[in-house]
């Protein structure tokens, strides 16, 4: 029965995901059809109503599928997902490194050297990523703080140009980060394997495991946190009060009581 339900859920999941994508595509298609119709007045209540009616059937099907899914899941609930606790590889590596004796056999020395090389490769990978991010920040900042790139007569064009400048760097940094994570995982596993071999080879002379005493990070020191909180509360209240007197409160009110047409897509 459990296997059957798993299969049913899988089929339902795939079918419903496809249906969701299809309904979303239909909505997008309808709005694009209206926008590209070239009519003098693109959107009217009648046109919008007409377009919605055209896709009513798949929408109703989608809603019924949601209800059906919720009913089935409640009658035959999912098995509770087992939580998967991952050990911290870096902590394990540090702990293994601390167990090694001061004088090592030649074979172990080679293993430790190889492990250090992998560590160096990891560092290089992170530095490369940092360099890519830094380059991106510099290029994008130089572009974004240049007033010549923000002319009032073509706001949409200028914003699009700004996005097209920032986006490739963002994508590049993202891909670089993913690559670094994958490489780091691989490098850590290599280091761990080498260190375990080194530890096994020196099993008789290992140092006692010492609990790694970590310095309390700055923002976990209660006194520091208390002090910063008090300071920031004072700053916050001061700024709030200044804002009331310099018209900031009124500015917020004026914007909030009038429809921001472009904020809601009217324009």
């Amino acid at each position, binding site marked *: 029965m459990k296997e059957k339900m798993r299969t049913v859920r899988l089929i339902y999941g795939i079918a419903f995901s496809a249906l969701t994508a299809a309904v979303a595509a239909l909505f997008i298609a309808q709005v694009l059809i209206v926008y590209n119709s070239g009519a003098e007045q693109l959107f009217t209540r009648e046109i919008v109503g007409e377009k919605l009616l055209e896709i009513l059937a798949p929408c109703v099907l989608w809603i019924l599928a949601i209800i059906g899914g919720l009913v089935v899941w409640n009658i035959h609930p999912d098995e509770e997902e087992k939580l998967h606790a991952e050990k911290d590889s870096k902590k394990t590596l540090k702990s293994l490194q601390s167990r090694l004796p001061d004088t090592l056999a030649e074979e172990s020395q080679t293993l430790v050297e190889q492990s250090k090389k992998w560590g160096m490769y990891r560092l290089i990978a992170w530095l490369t990523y940092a360099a890519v991010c830094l380059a991106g920040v510099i290029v994008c900042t130089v572009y974004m703080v240049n007033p010549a790139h923000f002319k009032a*007569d073509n706001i949409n064009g200028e914003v699009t140009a700004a996005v097209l400048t920032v986006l490739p760097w963002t994508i590049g940094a993202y891909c670089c980060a993913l690559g670094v994570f994958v490489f780091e995982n691989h490098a850590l596993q290599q280091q761990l394997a080498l260190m375990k071999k080194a530890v096994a080879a020196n099993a008789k002379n290992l140092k006692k495991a010492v609990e790694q005493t970590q310095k309390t990070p700055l923002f976990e020191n209660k006194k520091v946190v208390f002090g910063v909180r008090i300071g920031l509360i004072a700053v916050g209240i001061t700024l709030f009060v200044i804002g009331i007197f310099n018209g900031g409160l009124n500015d917020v009110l004026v*914007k909030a009581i009038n429809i921001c047409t472009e904020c*809601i897509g009217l*324009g």
Partner: protein
Amino acid sequence: MKNFFAKIKDWFVKHKPTKRRLIQVYAALLYNANIKGFVTGNIYQGASKQFCLPGFNCYSCPGAVGACPLGSLQNALAASKTTVPSYIFGIIILFGLTLGRTICGFLCPAGLAQELLYKIKTPKVKKSKATYVLSYLKYVILAVFVVLIPLMYSGVIPVPAFCKYICPVGTAEGAGGLLANPNNDDLFTLLGGLFTWKFILLVLFIVGSIFFFRFFCRFFCPLGAIYGFFCKLAMIGVKIDKDKCTDCGLCISACKMDVRKVGDHECIHCGACMSACPTKAIVWKGSEMFLKGSDCNTPAPLSKPLSEFLKKTGTTEETQESADVDISMQASVEINPAPVQMQENAVTAKVVPTVAERVKKRNKTLEIVAWATAGVVLVSSLVYYNFIHKDAEVGEGYEVGCIAPDFTVDVYGSDENFTLSENKDKLTVVNFWATWCTPCVAELPYFEEFYSQYGDQVNLVAIHGTAVTEDVDAFIAEKFSGYEITFAQDAVQAETEMNVYNTYGGVNSWPTTVIIDEDGVILYNSSKSFHSAQDLIDLIVPMLSE
């Protein structure tokens, strides 16, 4: 039959909303207490809108009773050349310090909507390194759209770039709420390319929220990014009791956000990790507030190492670092023993409540008081906004075909004034605008261009709204110097006892253009903004020949 009802009761008990869900719904209701706005199609214009709400809620939503902090921040930065944005900085600091990202977990209607969408049964995309890296995208959006673009356009033209180009909440709440009302048919004339883009984005965000937990919050929300800076300092939220934590990592595993540690900048303090922690090491910050010093009996340290209670399943040498672990319940019992049974006083046969029982009673009392206060606040708000508060009055007879009410307004840059009845020799074009209104400022050059060609055939007066946020004279002198069109300031008229904008049916939609013929008949009255001088020529020139 009894069995059936028992099953139904069990189902309701199992599926009753959590306290967090109730608080989320409460917050959504309180933020949008102006329910009559959905009926009338108007947004609330009262004084409470000068205060920012902590969560994400568009102030153009008909129900909204407060201002959106993100919209307010962008507008404040856009006006930073004339007014230091201290109010909005101050309020964000205070929100961040007191609540931090607990706002995201408890007080954000957008978060609630996403969590409800996530409940739809589909295969879900689980968090991974890829989603962790992608969660930094919201900082890029914060920097570019919320800070830099409004700042770079500051003093030129207000551009709330995030609201305009990305925010799905504005499209859903604002546009959806207003357009759904039959009284707002004229707003359909404003829909164009921008609406098409934002609608497509809204659909994508909705679909994303079905497959990804809190899709918008995790990857796109700049407000969450801002509150995330306060993760270490916020007074309310979850924290780890280091004395009890065994670093098992189950909390991270149970969390659907891209956290690396409980309480970091990605944590929304929803408390989902608390039930996963076998040693109950995750507690709410400030929980000591509910306990007196003498009540805080720290439980004795665990007598046996936790490893004795860990059962590794399916372990091999290769997978030793990532083996599934089964934490036995005995571990949790050893660390957190059940409250000691009540002890009877043998002499008086009186039951003496233990410390734990007293604390429980005090917490229960505090909870009841909190819910009662919250209930009173919500009911009072609903009654005030929907029954007591009166919307701004609007004139009658301002539609096309009606006789235009007369008005007199003071002209900027001179001692003269402009009176409609004294200017009936030509067609009169009245444009209601404001310095804080982006489309208004953007279209005035087109009016000037039109006027330079047809100024001998029309009167054109641009009337600034009564709500002034900066020196309008200086603004006109800087931006529109040399313009031939007449700039004037709106004021309350003696006859109608309302300002000209309201007299002509204006409530809260800017810009508005009214065209009046030589006989004083209104030919055109609309909130549509113009994107070129040709639009104006196409509209007005045919009226001239008539």
